[in-house]
């Protein structure tokens, strides 16, 4: 691009832009107005309303019914709702498991597949397959393996009377859910990372190998640092997904509270006890927990624009 030709044409456009025709102004108004209205009305307005409502009691749908509750909903959650702490514990386990086990496995897989080991195309498809299935289908499939007369109990040779209740027994249930969630998460992370790896200059790796770096050193010292933007995105996605979790647990446990997580508690407290706005308070807690990853994500994606 030569500067001489680019500059005047830019100026020309700038001059033209100030003289939009009436029709153009109306068109632009619609182009921005309709999507913005919809987005603000159904995402931002409700989000802010939830924060407000978490300090109130509200039955029914008439606005007159709203009464101020102060911090009562939060006090109720923190001091009188032991299930909240169970949920918080489960979501924490979820984050830690994803962060330390599922996500690294996805990264490792991506790295090996990117090296084009024998059969990498087939493997890639196999690991990716669960990602396209809905969590509802995932729940049914795994229930199929793990129920009392399912595959795993059959493999262990246990008769139905002695079968392990993988979803009911508290010793197992969270870990079973973690394995199910990872089944999908690992493929997803693998894919994101693979796309990032494709963009890393192959010459970098070649150079490291020639310099006598072992494979692990090459990954840790050369590839991993070069992947910083993708690393941040992957970590953020890991945390956000762990906090938002809902579908799979709900498909298996319904509203029973057999495996409390924050996402299900919000749901139960709107569908069930509509009287308080406890559900809104749960949602706000969930939001506060997700704020740091959301901001990190935005910073990563918009750092070029802001600078």
């Amino acid at each position: 691009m030569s500067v001489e030709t680019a500059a005047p044409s830019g100026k020309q456009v700038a001059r033209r832009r100030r003289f939009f025709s009436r029709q153009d102004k109306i068109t632009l108004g619609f182009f921005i107005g309709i999507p913005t209205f919809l987005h603000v009305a159904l995402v931002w307005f409700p989000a802010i309303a939830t924060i407000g409502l978490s300090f109130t009691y509200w039955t029914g749908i008439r606005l007159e019914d709203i009464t101020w509750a102060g911090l009562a909903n939060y006090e109720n959650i923190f001091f009188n709702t032991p299930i909240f702490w169970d949920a918080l514990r489960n979501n924490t386990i979820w984050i830690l498991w994803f962060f330390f086990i599922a996500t690294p496995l996805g990264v490792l897989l991506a790295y090996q597949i990117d090296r084009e080991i024998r059969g990498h195309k087939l493997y890639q498809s196999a690991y990716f397959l669960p990602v396209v299935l809905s969590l509802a289908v995932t729940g049914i499939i795994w229930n199929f393996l793990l129920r009392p007369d399912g595959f795993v109990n059959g493999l262990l040779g246990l008769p139905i009377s002695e079968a392990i209740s993988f979803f009911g027994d508290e010793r197992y249930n969270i870990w079973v859910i973690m394995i199910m969630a990872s089944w999908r998460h690992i493929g997803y992370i693998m894919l994101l990372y693979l796309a990032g790896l494709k963009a890393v200059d192959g010459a970098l790796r070649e150079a490291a190998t020639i310099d006598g770096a072992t494979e692990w050193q090459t990954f840790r010292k050369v590839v991993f640092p070069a992947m910083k933007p993708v690393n941040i995105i992957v970590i953020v996605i890991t945390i956000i997904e762990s906090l938002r979790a809902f579908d799979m647990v709900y498909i298996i446990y319904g509203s029973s509270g057999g495996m409390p997580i924050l996402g299900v508690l919000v749901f139960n407290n709107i569908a069930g006890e509509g009287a308080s706005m406890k559900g809104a308070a749960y949602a706000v807690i969930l939001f506060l927990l997700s704020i740091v990853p959301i901001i990190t994500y935005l910073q990563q994606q918009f750092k070029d624009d802001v600078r």
Partner: protein
Amino acid sequence: MTTTVKVPKLPKRKKRLYAQDIKDRFISIFIGIFAVVWVFPIVWTLWSSLRPYSEIRAGGVFSPPQELGVFNYASAIDRMELPTYFTNTVLITLPAVFLILLLGSLIAFVVTRYSFKFNVAMLLLFTAGNLLPPQLVFIPVFKLYLLLGDLVGDRRFLYDNHWGVILIHVAFQMGFATFVLSSYMKTIPKEISESAMVDGASVFTHYFRVMLPLLRPPLASLGVLMITWIYNDFFWALVLMSTDNKRPITSALGRLTGEFVTDYNLLAAGAMIAALPTLIVFFVLRKQFVGGLTLGSTKG
């Protein structure tokens, strides 16, 4: 998108090459075994869906099959009323994806092609909105739908109505579409827009005749990804609908899980049928699907 230039293999010491080869073979086998484990749950469900549940109750899960066939599928389609749910899914997914792509591309177009002061702020608004947990949004949306219904005089104006679900998907996913499409549009040379403007094209023509044709690749990827996401949505159709036979297939599965708990193999067939469209997308349009996912995560 960056293209990687393959560097020609440089000569290495033979010994090291050999050791690496053996190691790679091991890694490959290991990952291969793992891959089989990965696919196994799906294969097992598929296998079981071809057998009657009574056989399993009588002889256990490993009993040799006496009877194999698609009878569970026929009965799932019939007894679970799957065609109704599929119709609902189509009625929700298609308009939603169309509107997401249209509205998302409009915002991306204005923000990247015309420089206003609030361009970055607009993009931030949409992208951040997409990242909010749905749980934070749904109580007021639920009440708003009921309230609007009362105002119009029809409680099912938005609540328990396909349009209500469509609108919330559009509002949410538009953020993602805007973000992805604007990153793509930034790579389209400004000169194209400039010459259109110099030629006196209206904003309308500029968008529909000049930009839209250039956006085909990302729109295709995004479209495939959005179809899969909305098809797989469980949450919104569950909370914003109350009539069972209006629900799309994925949410309906939740209810079916409870109702057909006595015949697991029938349920397996139902799950396989529900998974079929996404599996077809996976095998036929994988490139677009993967492209859509990664467009959002790695910029440029």
